[in-house]
Every structure is written in structure tokens, then in C-alpha cells.
């Protein structure tokens, strides 16, 4: 094992001295659960990542990949942390093949830049108008044609998150209801494995069964098996029309009745989101008529052919009336994208906020949603907290977040009860964010199942030295 200074020298040779930082003020910006790394490297391409990893692997160092750090707090506190590899400089679009509906990008490309790049291809955009004006003055949004395209994923923190981080965390949003998940949108990837070897998998084609589906397998592994360096993404043509309908209800029962009725039709909304009053207020928009403390809001995103969007608007308004909606609002295409961008940021997951808080993501079979959403809210409100609740209806996912002030001690019991409720329904949960001090009392990754032994086998074979984020992942892997 080489001396620290020799290791630093080797790392610096790999990326260039300017791109390897050891100064305290830089290191402190790359803490993970309070743990300071020894160095932070900023490689500019896959080969450099490979070089860094080979050195780290040989020296028995522990590595944490880092995109924009929006989701870095999710996970157990690391057992060890030596080197942070930040993909910020790997921000090139490698192959923009719009006619083939594929896009190949480096992992450090910011998610919002992907949509912006695709928007400039055609005359319609998937992003809020205001944002695009700063990118390019020539882009004009119109309703003429719709041969433009977009990347059909709507993860939270899309302003800052990198595509590598989005994929490593298997991050998604409300519109997964219609557009599906990251695993359905990644066609290929280039990964640097724990020992530094470069592994390419998949390709540009929608169909590909040559070899193990490694690109799919790497998604959601949160850096525990390697570093995603490049990805080929599947694009879709822009929807012809987009609009949102929002309804307010005076209680959960009527809101959930509306949701179930909508999901029971054969129509195809892009998203159906349920928010409690606290979550809706985080959007900082105007209240709907009739809203009060116990109100719930349901927002449906409609992205389809024009007449289909019109039909869904009409039908949903009818159904909302039947279920006693107290207010309604229609959001046109101009503000539709901005609305959903804000929905993505309702649940905080980052250490920028001063307040102590927790954010939990529950996953469960679709039909259990009402019971679990109520259990989640009750669990926290009973103990005096005021949580925000966001339900991705029809997808079996809900998020709950609350400031905890100095009452952190109560949280562990609440979460453990909630986990038991989820398990009873065949689901699970993940604590996406909690103050480091609370983590040891929390089931961060929910409860492991019978397949944990398989995960263990794979981790031990693919990362035998425990180079990648040791201890952070499920079961302490």
C-alpha cells in the first residue's frame, strides 16, 4: 500500500492536478453523512474514471460517485470514504440521434440540459417557456407540428440532478404512470466497475438481448457496483397537446374516490397526483376555491393527441363533480410544464435546508394505496408533525416528508410502524433523507427479502474489496 502522497500524485496524474482537490474547503462540500473524503476528483471522460478507479481499487480506498449530490444523503452512513469521483466535467452529449429517437450522454450531463437540448431540435418544447428563453432566443413554442421529441422521465430536482445520478438512484416522478420507468428508458450504458474495468452494455437499439441486461441491472444500485459513465436513452415524440386539471376535495375519502374512479376508466392520463394541503402549499400557487386545512388536491397531467386531452379534461371534471370536488382549475400548455417541475421539488432530499427533516418513499402494490397513505399521514400527525404527502397514484408510490424540529426521537417508532404496514401489504419503504444522527435508529432501506442472498453474492463477486460506497446500500452492502 502506497503512501498517501503517492496515491494523491497518481490520482492527480490521471485527471490533471487542477482536477484533483484535497483542500479542506472543497472536501467539506463533498461530505457524505458528515464524513469527509480525502480527495475529490473531477474526471472528464470514462477513461479517466477507469484510471481513478484502478488506483483506488489497488490501494483499498473507498469510493463514492457524485453527480450533483441531490440524492447523496440516501443510504446508511458510509463505513469508509476516501475518494469522491464527481462527474461534473463529464457533461457532453455524445450522440443526438433524434430520427432514431435515441440520445447518448455522459453521466454528468444535467437532466434539464437533456430536455433543453432536445427542445432546440424542433419548434416545441417540453420545458417551461421561461427557462428556454435563457437557452436560446430562437426557440418558439407553437402548436403547429409535433415532430419534436423529449426524454420521457420526470425525476425530482431535475434542475440540478445529473442523468447519472438519476439513473443510479432509479429516480422517477409522477408521469411514470404513462411513460414508465428508468429501466424502460435506458438502452445501453458504459460503466466503470469496482476494479476499474470499463464495461459496455446494450447499445442504441430498442431491442437488445445480447448478454446479460447489465444496463438495467446497474440502475438503482446507487453506486454500489460501479460508476455509470455514459448512457443511451430512449426518446419519444412530443405529445401533441398537454394540459393539467387540478381538483380540490375537502377530505381524503372524496379525493381517493375520485382517483380510483379515474384510474378505473380506460383513459390514459400521464399522471394522477394526490397532495395533502401541506404539499400543495409547497407549490406556492394560489389556493383552489374551497380549500381548508384538511383538504386534498388531485392533479392530473394530460399529454396526448389534442382530442384525447379534451376528452380526458371533460370526463375528469365530470367525475370530480360526482365525488364532490370543491374547486377546479385547468392549467394550459404554457404553464403545464412549470407546474410539474414544481411538483418534482415538493419533497426535499438534500442538506441545504436548515431544518431537520425526514423524507420517506413508500412502495407498494397499487391497490394498497389508500390504506398506506392514510397510515403514513396518521403516523406522523398523531405525533404532532405536519407532513407533506404526495401520492403517485396508479404507480404504487407515495412520498411523505416532515420537519421534525427537536422531536427526532419520535421518528424511529413512526417509521418502523409504517414499514410494518408496508410489509403487510407486500411493499417496502426507503428513508430518502434523515439527519445523520437519526440514521442508526431508522430502517433506511426498509426490510430485505429472500433475494438479499443473491444481492450479497453479486456484490461480493463484483466488488470483492468493498471499493464502492461500502456499507451504504441495502443490508449494509
Amino acid at each position, binding site marked *: 500500500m502506497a503512501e498517501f502522497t503517492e496515491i494523491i500524485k497518481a490520482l492527480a496524474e490521471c485527471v490533471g492536478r487542477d482536477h484533483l482537490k484535497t483542500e479542506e474547503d472543497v472536501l467539506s462540500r463533498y461530505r457524505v453523512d458528515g464524513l469527509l473524503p480525502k480527495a475529490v476528483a473531477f474526471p472528464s471522460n470514462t477513461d479517466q474514471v477507469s484510471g481513478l478507479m484502478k488506483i483506488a481499487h489497488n490501494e483499498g480506498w473507498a469510493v463514492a460517485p457524485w453527480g450533483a449530490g441531490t440524492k447523496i444523503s440516501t443510504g446508511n452512513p458510509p463505513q469508509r470514504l476516501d475518494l469522491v469521483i464527481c462527474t461534473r466535467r463529464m457533461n457532453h452529449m455524445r450522440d443526438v*440521434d433524434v*430520427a*432514431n429517437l*435515441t440520445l447518448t450522454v455522459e453521466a454528468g450531463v444535467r437532466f434539464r440540459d437533456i430536455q433543453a437540448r432536445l427542445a432546440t431540435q424542433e419548434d416545441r418544447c417540453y420545458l417551461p417557456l421561461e427557462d428556454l428563453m435563457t437557452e436560446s432566443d430562437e426557440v418558439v413554442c407553437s402548436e403547429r407540428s409535433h*415532430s*419534436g*421529441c423529449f426524454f420521457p422521465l420526470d425525476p425530482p430536482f431535475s434542475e440540478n440532478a445529473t442523468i447519472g445520478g438519476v439513473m443510479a438512484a*432509479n429516480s*422517477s416522478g409522477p408521469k411514470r404512470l404513462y411513460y*414508465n420507468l428508468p*429501466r*424502460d428508458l435506458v438502452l445501453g450504458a458504459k460503466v466503470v466497475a469496482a476494479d476499474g474495468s470499463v464495461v*459496455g*452494455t446494450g*447499445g*442504441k*437499439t*430498442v*431491442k*437488445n*438481448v*445480447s*448478454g*446479460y*441486461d447489465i444496463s*438495467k*441491472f446497474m*440502475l*438503482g*444500485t446507487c453506486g454500489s457496483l460501479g460508476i455509470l459513465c455514459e448512457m443511451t436513452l430512449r426518446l419519444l415524440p412530443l405529445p401533441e397537446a398537454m394540459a393539467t386539471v387540478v381538483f380540490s376535495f375537502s377530505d381524503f375519502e372524496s379525493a381517493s374516490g375520485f382517483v380510483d374512479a379515474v384510474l378505473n376508466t*380506460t383513459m*390514459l392520463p400521464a399522471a394522477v397526483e394526490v397532495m395533502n394541503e401541506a404539499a400543495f402549499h409547497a407549490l406556492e400557487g394560489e389556493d383552489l376555491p374551497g380549500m381548508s386545512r384538511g383538504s386534498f388536491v388531485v392533479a392530473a397531467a394530460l399529454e*396526448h*393527441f389534442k382530442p*384525447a386531452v*379534451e376528452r380526458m379534461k371533460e370526463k375528469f371534471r365530470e367525475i370530480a363533480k360526482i365525488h364532490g370536488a370543491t374547486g377546479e382549475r385547468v392549467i394550459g400548455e404554457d404553464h403545464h410544464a412549470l407546474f410539474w417541475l414544481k411538483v418534482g421539488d415538493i419533497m426535499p432530499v438534500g442538506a441545504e435546508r436548515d431544518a431537520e427533516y425526514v423524507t420517506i418513499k413508500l*412502495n407498494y*402494490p*397499487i*391497490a394498497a394505496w389508500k390504506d398506506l397513505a392514510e397510515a403514513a399521514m396518521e403516523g406522523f400527525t398523531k405525533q404532532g408533525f405536519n407532513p407533506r404527502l404526495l401520492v403517485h397514484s396508479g*404507480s*404504487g*408510490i407515495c412520498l411523505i416528508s416532515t420537519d421534525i424540529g427537536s422531536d427526532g426521537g419520535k421518528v424511529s417508532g413512526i417509521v418502523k410502524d409504517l414499514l410494518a404496514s408496508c410489509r403487510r*401489504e*407486500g*411493499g*417496502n*419503504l426507503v428513508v430518502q433523507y434523515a439527519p445523520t444522527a437519526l440514521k442508526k435508529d431508522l430502517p433506511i*432501506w*426498509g426490510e*430485505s*427479502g*429472500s*433475494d*438479499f442472498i*443473491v444481492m450479497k453474492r*453479486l456484490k461480493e*463477486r*463484483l466488488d470483492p474489496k468493498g471499493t464502492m460506497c461500502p456499507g451504504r446500500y*441495502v443490508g449494509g452492502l
Partner: protein
Amino acid sequence: MEKQELTARLKEIVDPEFVLTSEMDLKLYSYDASMDRATPDVVVLPSCTEEVSKIMALCYKEKVPVLGRGSGTNLTGGTIPTKGGVVIHFARMNKILEVDLPNLTVTVEPGIFTLDLQNRMVALGYAYQPDPASQKVSTIGGNVSENSGGPKCLKYGTTTNHVKGLEMVLDDGTVVEMGGKAQDAPGFDLTGLMVGSEGTLGMVTKVILRLMRKPEAVKTMLAVFNSIQDGANTVSAIIAEGIIPASLEMMDNTMMRAVEATLKVGYPLDAACVLIIELDGMPEGMDEKAEQIVSICKANKVREIKVAKNQEEYDLLWAGRKGAFGSVGQIRPSYMCCDGTVPRTKLPEVLARVMEISEEYNLPIGNVFHAGDGNLHPLILFDDRDKEEVARVLKASSAILKACADVGGTISGEHGVGLEKLKETSFIFCESDLEFERNIKRAMDPSNIINEGKMIPEPACEA
């Protein structure tokens, strides 16, 4: 382990009536839809997961090669027992275990025929989308192992996009559950890894599949062209215009003639190719999309477009496409299907190259394929009794796959690598890619007894 003792031990696990050792029985299990042949030592048909678990534990302890088989429609040799040993045939495990409509799932045993499952779901108003052409005969377990495709993949994805969870028996007999009815289970996407693993990592004993509501409306068209280029250009143009049909299939003249001779579905025998285009979803806007497609076809010199007006016409249209592979039997007794996939825009170029290869090697090649996602299926037609012809076929096949890889495509869109394409993996993988795969295999099957020798070539020799 001695074959006799192995048989005796298996008869303790599975009803002896379902442990097969006669010469004729073994011969029936020595082939699949690929060109390879090999005879197993014994075939066993278990009735439940517990029996599969005990069989695997036995093979693990005695280091006996073992592999799983559905209907053996596998085109790449995935079900050929090249090392002898035990073949586990899942024919008796063919039930639907649970239909859970509120959760949009159906749980099945691996031996169920895919079309049977689909028909039962359609009767309820729901759809299991992946529709491999072999669906009448192939099983869900087989589809899962190969990550089967089908015409609907263009819009709905392949089998892996519709598998929510698996019950699997590991090499040593341990039974584990991966995934489930809930999405986003914390942990590795093991289900995603197992689907398409060609039966090399374990034995799947239960599958939880995703259901969708049946689409409200369907519109299917047949577009006839006088040149393949026009058809291929139309495919690119449709996608470029922002229309993603549910299916976009192409058949060339050779294939149409073969189909007409057996099935008589009404294909024009003097056309160069036809496109089958299907739209599905909400009816609003569908007519306009169909009009748009007609315009695009006309802009690309289409000769004629027919829209299926009723269920009968619809069935006939698809019967031709799905019966295509089977009908080539009257041109030549054998076929080799090259499963290369290319980016759509490269279709015209690659199709031209396939025609060149056909002339170069003097072999008839028919093309029927998923044009919408660039997944070709050039069928090289030959007589496998003619050794000289077989040699030319293997070279032609390799050349076609190379052409696909060269334009940024891949060597297998749907049928897997199996035995057939072990050599061709070098067109798209380098040694470190393969070594990562080998490590996955070593983690799951360190004894290397599960479907040994498939999918991953041996390491290149040090020079």
C-alpha cells in the same frame, strides 16, 4: 454420478412417470428450433417449486449439468443440453396461479403457453402485451429467459418491461423471490438481470407479470410497396413524424410467397414488400394519425393501403405475419434466422447489404421483421442435409450480423446469444465486457452447471 443412480434419485423427488430415460424420449429433447443437437442423460417434469428446488439441490451436490426447457422454440440453442445431464421440462407447471386485476398483475407458472395466458386476460378486458410470434407454442418461462419480443415491442417494450417479479430456484436449491407486485423495491433490480439471462443463472418457477387495460381502439393497415427501399423509408418517416404505432412490421416478397402458398391471407405476390402498421390506444385522434400514416406511405410511393375493417380481416392480416417462419418450409426444409437489430435509419442500408450477401453466398434470404424497432429477421433458407450449403449459411449469417454491428446495431434483438452466436459476441463486446458477465455467472453458478456453455464465450486465449 452414474446415470442410473441419478435417475433413481430423481424418481424419489418427482413422480417416476415423469422421469424420462428411454432413447426415444431423450431424442425428443435433443433438439430445439436451432441447428444444434445434443442428448441429455435424463429428462424430468416437476409439478411444483419444491420439486424443482430438490432437483437443483441434487444437481448442485453431485455437480450434474442441468438446464430448463419450456417448449423448446428457442432459436439459438439455449435448450440444447450440450453437456448432457438433466433437462427440467416445465410442461406440468403451467397454471395461472392468481389474477389480481386491482394490482394489474397475473402470477403464472413458467410452463404456461403465452397465447393461452393472453387470451384469458383479453377475455377479462386486460392485456399482457409481449406477443412473440411463437406465442402459440412458447411458454412464459421461455419468454422470460430469452426476453422475448414480438411486434408490439415497438410501443410496449419486451418481456422484461412486463415482468414485475420472479420466484427463482438458485444453483443450490434455495428458493428466492425477486421483485413483486410493488415497483421500486429497494435493492438491485434482480428481476431485470434474470430476464434475458438465457437460463444460465437459475431456474424460474413463478412469474409475476404486468397487465394493462386493453386499448380502447385498434386500427391495423397493410401497405403494399413496389420496392423495399420505399418500405424502409416509410418506416423511418413514420417514426420521424412522431407517430409510434403499436406495431410496424415488414415482409418481403420471398416471405409473402411462402405465406400465400400455405396460409392464403391475400398478400400481393408481385409486390416487393408490405408493411403491417397497427395503432392502438384512445380512439380520439386515431383516425387523424391513420390519415397521416397514409400520407406518409403515399409520399413514399405506396401502391395500395388496406385497413382491416373487422376482426376477421384483422386476424387474417396477422396470421400471415405470425405464420411466416413456419411457412418457409416449402421453399427449403431449414432456415437460419439472423436476429440482428439496427437503428431504424440504417434499415435501407442494411437491407441492401443483406441482398448482396444473399447473392454473394448464393442462398435465398427472406425477410420478415419488426421494422419499427430495426429488428431484422433475415431467414436464410437451406437444406441442412447439404453440408456444403450449411457451411455457406453459417458464413452468410455471420456476415449479416457483422453488418448490423457495423452500423451501430447489435447481434441479437430477441433470440438471444445461446450457442448460435457465441463467436459473434466479439462484434459488439470486448473482453472486459465479457469478463463482467462471467463474474455475474460465477456469482450465481460457481460450479458452472446451469446451462453451461451458453451465451458467454470462453475467455480468449492469452497469445
